[in-house]
């Protein structure tokens, strides 16, 4: 029962598969959330994008985690469309920058990856915290992971705290009035609904914890 201190290439692949399966499982749920305040396609688009990602996993060169994430990012950019394509594509491209050339991800690498992902999504979507977007799950996930490491937590514990924070952030989008994306056209009527992008982002962070924190 050794503490896991770094994540290997195979575990990254395993996570991507789990996340794809989770998106497929929650496709209807995400689309349902999106039909309340958006245009009813978020689950469908994310599922289509990650099915395409799964198709690329076997042809990726094993070993380079950064290159793998870049492939994921480019696949999402070209397959998803909508706002989710550029935003999730950018997220994975930035994770790829933070992990370029690495065959293992240390806790510090993942902290940098989350920071890069948030910065990239923010630059592409020009959203601020509290705008009722995926950032409202990602920013708490980044901050909770960093502060857990600073507190001396090991990787599994830090991942779980990060996932809990993302889910809290996701639920906290319910009362918010949207200020970005199609939901913003509803004004006050967007309040009372959970943001679909924050939901898929919380699923992303939760599946990271489930896969990498293991039972360990």
């Amino acid at each position, binding site marked *: 029962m050794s503490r896991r201190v770094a994540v290997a290439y195979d575990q990254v692949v395993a996570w991507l598969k789990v996340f794809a399966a989770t998106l497929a499982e929650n496709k209807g749920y995400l689309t349902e959330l999106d039909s309340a305040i958006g245009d009813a396609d978020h689950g469908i688009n994310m599922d289509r994008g990650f099915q395409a990602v799964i198709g690329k996993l076997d042809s990726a060169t094993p070993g380079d985690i950064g290159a793998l994430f870049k492939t994921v990012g480019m696949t999402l950019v070209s397959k998803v*469309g*909508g706002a989710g394509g550029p*935003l999730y594509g950018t997220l994975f491209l930035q994770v790829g920058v933070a992990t370029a050339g690495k065959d293992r991800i240390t806790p510090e690498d993942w902290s940098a990856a989350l920071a890069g992902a948030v910065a990239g999504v923010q630059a592409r979507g020009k959203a601020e915290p509290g705008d009722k977007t995926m950032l409202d799950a990602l920013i708490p996930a980044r901050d909770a992971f960093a502060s857990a490491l600073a507190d001396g937590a090991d990787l599994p514990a830090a991942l779980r705290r990060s996932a809990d924070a993302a889910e809290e952030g996701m639920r906290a989008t319910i009362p918010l009035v949207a200020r970005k994306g199609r939901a913003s056209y509803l004004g006050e009527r967007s309040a009372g609904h959970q943001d679909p992008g924050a939901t898929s982002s919380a699923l992303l962070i939760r599946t990271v914890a489930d896969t990498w924190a293991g039972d360990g």
Partner: protein
Amino acid sequence: MALPPPPNPIGSEVRMKKLINDPADVVREELQGIEAAHPDLVKVSYDPHFITRADAPVQGKVALVSGGGSGHEPMHGGFVGMGMLDAACPGEVFTSPTPDQMEAATKAVDGGAGVVHIVKNYTGDVMNFEMAADLCRAEGTEVEAVVVDDDVAVQDSLYTAGRRGVGTTVLMEKIAGAAAEQKRPLKEVADICREVDANGRSMGMALTSCTVPSAGKPTFELGDDEMEIGIGIHGEPGRERMKMKPAADVVEMMATAIVDDIPFSKGDQVLAFVNGMGGTPLIELYVVFNELNKFLSGRGITISRNLIGSYITSLEMAGCSITLLKMDDDFTQLWDAPVKTAGLRWGT
């Protein structure tokens, strides 16, 4: 890890009635239909998806590229051809196309005089077109992007994604397309687009929702006696839901919001565009046009040109949108210029 099931699982209750084979194949099969129907007008690429005019690239002419989610037909693919668009990139239904489509389409139609991207102001469309323009410029293609944001239903644009691009898009594609056909330079064609956007305003309304094929159930619910004012073109709810009213009242509400916005004033000449959302018959659109004509006459505004029909639709949604564009001599001359596309055709 499954989240709690949605209150109304997709496909569980309402059966969708659509003339399709498989929701996953709708866009590709539509493109095959367009290719089979209009070989004289367009060429179709399938990997990635885009439509170009049959004689593209036209050397020395500025090329116009637009695109957006499918489900708005005839926009944009139906407007590809002489006097209008050089290429259109269809996304999935109601989903922005992707940068690789836009980049490939841009390269396919670039005749050496530069390319204008006409982008409707939706978060996804804007982000994907931005990424595409970056890719094209990196390879030396001159690209000017213009954003259409004419929907007066979106009021508080400081704190939102801004006004949506709706009916004015069709008028911009026609007018700028004519300017490009006259071999006007890139900067001028892009400026004409921006002038059209600055002088055009729209508002839409819905009587019914619509069903995205891959979702299988209506995007929103609207009571039998209700309508939604200020609707967008994706079945996204509008600003206000109210009880049904006669056409005269509905037109007055929409036209007042539009006319007060620019503002249009006495003595102005306008192009009046009464657009069907997909499920409203022409007989009702003419009733709407009649009311609009009366309303504008009362304000001293003259309709010098008109367009009536379903040109920018929202699948099978019932309802309409009204667009007014302030006209000058150049706009009028460009509007009257010949056009030959599947969706609009005159003067040829």
